[in-house]
């Protein structure tokens, strides 16, 4: 953090070279961060290889197996641990007998796809709006500021539910979720970017660029963006696990990914009726969701501390916003 010393407010902009290596070195000394990274890597690999693994185990995520569930007991799988066997590694879904292992992996695809897509969209919009507000004149800043205020004040989950109900059935659900979460959740990023931009734009190197004739957007792109990368990436690391939870919550409420496409939230929603008879069906999707969110949170926390130990705790408390309860 040597770039801007003596500047009061901003999270210090990291110079491109050296910083990444420094962050990497700090991360390597934290076992929790390393374990989280390994877990996430494994999960991403498993999700990417889901069709391959489905073929390998010979299971189709949509195929029903009525013979594996006990219809006399309302559809509880035969056998222990939710009917785990050599064919069905993690057992089968109660009621339908669909293979749980493959469905969980396909659920991971949905979860990661939506969360990463939504986070990217939030960051992109937030960067654009924040830069425009920070560099624009009083009116632009005022207008964008009010829009941001409204967005922060709105209950996001509520609006997301309303929106998913409005859009026609045929529209691809994961894309819809990305758009809804992305367009409703950029306010935090834009506030951070605006504050950083205001703090940076009066610094000498930015002023020099403006004086030598660089336009507003060129200044933004060439001079400000490199300094914005650190705080924005840090914030994105908070957003990503939060977006996983939002997707799971919407699916849990029955307004997210539509069946038969598997999703963790939706499985947990079904599990509400099975928690007595088939505990494995609660524990497995809950475990996957919990571990994924936790790993992203721990890794994000570590990256934040590595980027700037001093600012870490403040960023966390001050910006933890959208809670799905």
């Amino acid at each position, binding site marked *: 953090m040597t770039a801007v010393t003596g500047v009061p407010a901003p999270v210090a902009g990291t110079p491109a070279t050296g910083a990444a290596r420094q962050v990497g070195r700090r991360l390597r000394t934290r076992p929790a961060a390393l374990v989280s990274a390994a877990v996430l890597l494994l999960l991403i690999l498993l999700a990417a290889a889901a069709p391959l693994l489905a073929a390998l185990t010979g299971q189709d995520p949509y195929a029903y197996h009525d013979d594996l569930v006990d219809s006399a007991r309302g559809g509880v799988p035969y056998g222990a641990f939710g009917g785990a066997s050599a064919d069905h590694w993690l057992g089968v879904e109660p009621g339908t007998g669909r293979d749980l292992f493959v469905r969980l992996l396909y659920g991971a695809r949905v979860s990661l796809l939506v969360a990463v897509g939504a986070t990217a969209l939030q960051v992109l919009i937030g960067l654009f709006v924040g830069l425009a507000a920070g560099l624009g004149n009083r009116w632009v800043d005022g207008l964008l500021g*009010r829009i941001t*205020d*409204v967005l922060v*004040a*709105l*209950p996001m*989950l*509520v*609006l997301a*539910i*309303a*929106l998913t*109900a*409005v859009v*026609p059935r045929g529209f691809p659900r994961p894309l819809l979720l990305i758009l809804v979460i992305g367009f409703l959740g950029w306010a935090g990023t834009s506030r951070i970017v605006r504050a950083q931009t205001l703090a940076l734009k009066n610094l000498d190197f930015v002023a020099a660029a403006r004086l030598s004739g660089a336009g507003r957007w060129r200044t933004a792109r060439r001079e400000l963006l490199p300094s914005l990368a650190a705080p924005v990436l840090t914030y994105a690391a908070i957003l990503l*696990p*939060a977006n996983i*939870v939002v997707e*799971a*919550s919407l699916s*849990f*409420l*029955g*307004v997210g990914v539509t069946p038969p496409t598997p999703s963790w*939230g939706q499985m*947990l929603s079904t*599990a*509400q009726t099975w*928690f*007595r008879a088939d*505990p494995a069906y*609660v524990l497995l999707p*809950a475990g996957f*969701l*919990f571990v994924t*969110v*936790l790993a*992203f*949170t*721990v890794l994000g*926390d570590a990256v934040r501390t590595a980027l700037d130990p001093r600012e870490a*705790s403040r960023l*966390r*408390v001050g910006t*933890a916003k959208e*809670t*799905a*309860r």
Partner: protein
Amino acid sequence: MTRYLLRRLAGAALVLLALSVLVYALFYVLPGDPARLACGERCNPAQIAQVRAQLGLEEGAFTQYLHFLQGIVAGRSYSTGTELVRCDAPCLGLSYQTDQQVTALILERLPATASLALGALVVWLLVGVGTGLLSALRRGGPTERILTAVTLAGTGTPVFILGLLLLMLVCAHLQWLPFPTYVPLGEDPEQWAWNMLLPWLTLGLFESAKYARLTRSSVLETLAEDHIRTFRAYGAAERTLVTRHALRGAVPPVLAVSAVDLGSMFGGALLTESLFGIPGLGRTLIEGVRRIDLPVVVGVTLVMGVFVVLAGVLADLLHAAADRRVVLA
């Protein structure tokens, strides 16, 4: 102070106006026809047209919106075909499905939501602040590391996972409690409390993680201040320093954040209500969306917005009242 309050309230009103326009506009592009839904399956086109006229759907979108605003400020009258229904001042319209007044519906559902939120508040103030305080007291030791790990895990966990695990443990495994069914407080206070116990624990423990972190960091921040150093130099015990003096530093942020959280919970804790079948505002909203009941959705969303926005103002006031260094501007 008065000027500050007026400005904040005016800002809040603007936000709510924007929210109402947004939600109204959103449902206007709705593909489903509210009249068809309100009328039922066996309606012929003539009947649907009649319902459309009754619901005022023949008017332009903007006129309908103006009538809606007029209803909130001055009340309005509705024709149900045979008679004229008067809907008094904060009128949020009539449900397309049941013809019930939305204001009445919201008032009917609010107690369930309020009992959930207030009980959870007690839990997180006890557990959350207590945990944060404990980990500040034991800083550097194994207790703090464990507590930090637990709260970190807790901040990200979706509330329905916690709820499902508690259900499995308490209802299915230990069989201490039956599956909760909501009983109104006015009907049977004892049954109300027993049935709300799990929802309170779920929501309260879920929030506790955040409050533990908040309390811990505020206490540690205060411990670094000069006056604490002076106390310490005079020989005050570490325990007294943390629990008596440094804890004061955690009061303003905990109050402010609690106000904000309570505000958004009064708008309905959608997931918790849905998991435990509590007939609160959150469930009302989801039902409204499923049935495309425009007045219910708009009304509930607006009321949720009111709670959130007012809680924001309240949070700032509480923060300033608890911490003299904060200036309202």
